[in-house]
């Protein structure tokens, strides 16, 4: 079976007139967990949004391949149906729509099969338990009045329910307290399998303590400047991005 999940080739993008991604190359196989690090404004969230198909971001060059298919122009919902999932950095509040109703609609949409109310409730409660989320959240309006941490947990709950092939987690650990980071991170590790790939965007290594990371990439000024293993993440935690930034500047011809 083909393990190739995602292939990003020389990807460049802009928002309005501002260029953000300036030639990203990245490959991911099923069964892998990648971490994307980098200073603020480097383009991490942009990459996540471009992969999901956010309408404000325009691809100006390059190609995104998902399971061998070019998806540059694919609509957002179609990408989700193919198995791409984005855990939002700032999840939207949708008043009047309960978590359960929303997720059942979403599950029906991505699977193409209507979800029975009973079976779905069972699935949802099982996943809520996994993430230590109170069952009453199923009846609450989506993200409405949720704390920052609750919103992030809810994103991972959605990932657990929708079971995507590629999960992009945009700063899922920010806004979480120590215990919540542990719950969410162990949850993510449990969801990781040979059938999916996970891309974790983060500022901190705390979340990585609970996750078996395969690759770490550093993105600076719209490009991946260095790739490595957890050692790279540890190096950055100790020394910051200055050294890498300098290398990048000195090497502007390359």
């Amino acid at each position, binding site marked *: 079976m083909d393990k190739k999940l995602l292939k990003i080739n020389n990807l460049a993008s802009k928002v309005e007139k501002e260029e953000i991604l300036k030639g990203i190359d990245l490959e991911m196989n099923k069964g892998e967990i990648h971490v994307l690090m980098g200073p603020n404004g480097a383009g991490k969230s942009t990459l996540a949004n471009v992969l*999901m*198909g*956010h*309408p*404000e971001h325009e691809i100006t060059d390059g190609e995104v391949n998902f399971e061998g298919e070019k998806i540059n122009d694919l*609509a*957002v*919902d179609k*990408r*989700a*149906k193919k198995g791409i*999932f*984005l855990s*939002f950095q700032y*999840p*939207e*509040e*949708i*008043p*009047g*729509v*309960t978590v*359960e*109703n*929303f*997720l*059942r*609609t*979403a599950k029906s*949409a*991505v699977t193409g099969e209507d979800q029975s*109310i009973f079976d779905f409730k069972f699935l949802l409660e099982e996943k809520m338990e996994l993430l230590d989320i109170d069952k009453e959240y199923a*009846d609450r*309006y989506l993200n409405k009045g949720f704390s920052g941490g609750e919103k992030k947990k809810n994103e991972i709950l*959605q990932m657990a329910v*929708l079971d995507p092939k590629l999960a992009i987690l945009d700063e899922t650990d920010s806004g979480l307290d120590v215990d919540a980071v542990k719950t969410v991170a162990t949850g993510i590790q449990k969801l990781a399998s040979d059938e999916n790939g996970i891309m974790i965007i983060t500022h901190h290594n705390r979340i990585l303590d609970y996750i078996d990371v395969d690759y770490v990439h550093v993105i600076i000024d719209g490009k991946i400047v260095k790739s490595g293993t957890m050692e790279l993440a540890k190096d950055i935690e100790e020394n910051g991005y200055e050294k890498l930034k300098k290398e990048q500047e000195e090497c502007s011809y390359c």
Partner: protein
Amino acid sequence: MSENKVDLKEIDRSIHDKKTDKDYSNRAKIGLTPKIIREISKEKNEPEWMTEFRLKSLEIYQNKPLPDWGADISDLDMDEILTYIKGEGEIQNDWEEVPEDIKNTFDSLGIPEAEKESLAGVGAQYDSEVVYQNLKEELVEQGVIFMDMERALKEHEDIVKEHFMQLVPPDDHKFAALHGAVWSGGSFVYVPEDVEVDIPLQSYFRLNAAGAGQFEHTLIILEKGAKAHFIEGCSAPKYSVNNLHAGTVELFVKEGAELRYSTIENWSKNMYNLNTKRAIVEKDGLIEWVSGSFGSKVSMLYPMSILNGKGARAEYTGVTFAAEDQYLDTGAKVVHAAPHTSSNINARSIAKGGGHAFYRGLLKVTDSADHAKSTVSCESLMLDNDSKSDTVPVMDLNTDDIDIGHEAKVGRISEEAIFYLMSRGISEEEAKAMIVRGFVEPIAKELPLEYAVELNNLINLELEGSIG
């Protein structure tokens, strides 16, 4: 909203736009004269005072100018509108006796289902006459009266005479005067002291003739300590001639009584809906309005609550949906005229496809209403850049010792929210529908199940094809 309330199956617009093949030979002449008014009154076998009332109203109507504010109603040719259409159906007590074509229409509107589910009673109005009335026996035994206005005028003349157009007098505005002159049909509800009607009383009516005006009068009286829920639904088929609806609703809520008045109106897109609704609430009484306004070309509708006794309360929850070529001017009015009265207004409007939703509200606190409390919240949601929303909540406060809260939000549907939902595999159309349904959830949850479903169906219908 919770799933057990929502039926997302789409219904065909044509259900509401259906017109039956019917003989309208009995219709009155176009235009209004005292002679026509006398004919109407005579045909209805009305008491002399009602005939006089109609004639007096006609006089006021003919001398009153059109309102110079709100919607543009200059397209409305009053002489072209048939004011009185009598269908072949007389008032029925048994569903079996209802004429077949009328039944077919009701079938497609789901009325018999409502009956099958043993609801308290259905007063369904077909054109200008109520054709079907039924009320559970135990309610009759308790002295509850639920019948059409024509019959109430004969059987309960004293009660009708005491209350009829006392809250909305003919000189209130031109269309109130017109209503007074040509009113026909409508529902009459009387609940005696301390009687609680625990199942909603329902009435459903629709217009079925091109150019037909509908002027139904609803009169509800709750005696001391009585409780009731009245639901009214409307639907009209579509025609090319401008249609006028100028109904009147008068609600009398006596001391300690509680009335909930729910209505979902879905007018054809050529309708001028100029309805007047008013409630007067005595000491410690409660009026609750739940209102859904769909369809029509123009609507001007401002249910008013007059809090007349100490501790009287009013709640208003309303949603207005203005689509292409529609101007919906709606809002709630509350008059606090006694101490310790309270009101809570929650109005939502949606505009799409160039539609215009206008919230026009009034909060008046008289100088005798010390310790009055009121919260007004209006939110509007525009689904595209062509649509318009306005909010004009007027406040007229004449005493200081009061507690007033006001919140108004006007916004467009959030692209980020649509992106968020789409990133979970939900189509753009469904994402928008989901956001809109969530937006009106505070209203939907106030409605009984079948009406919440209808509200959702109407929203789905309105949203259909709204995506480029």
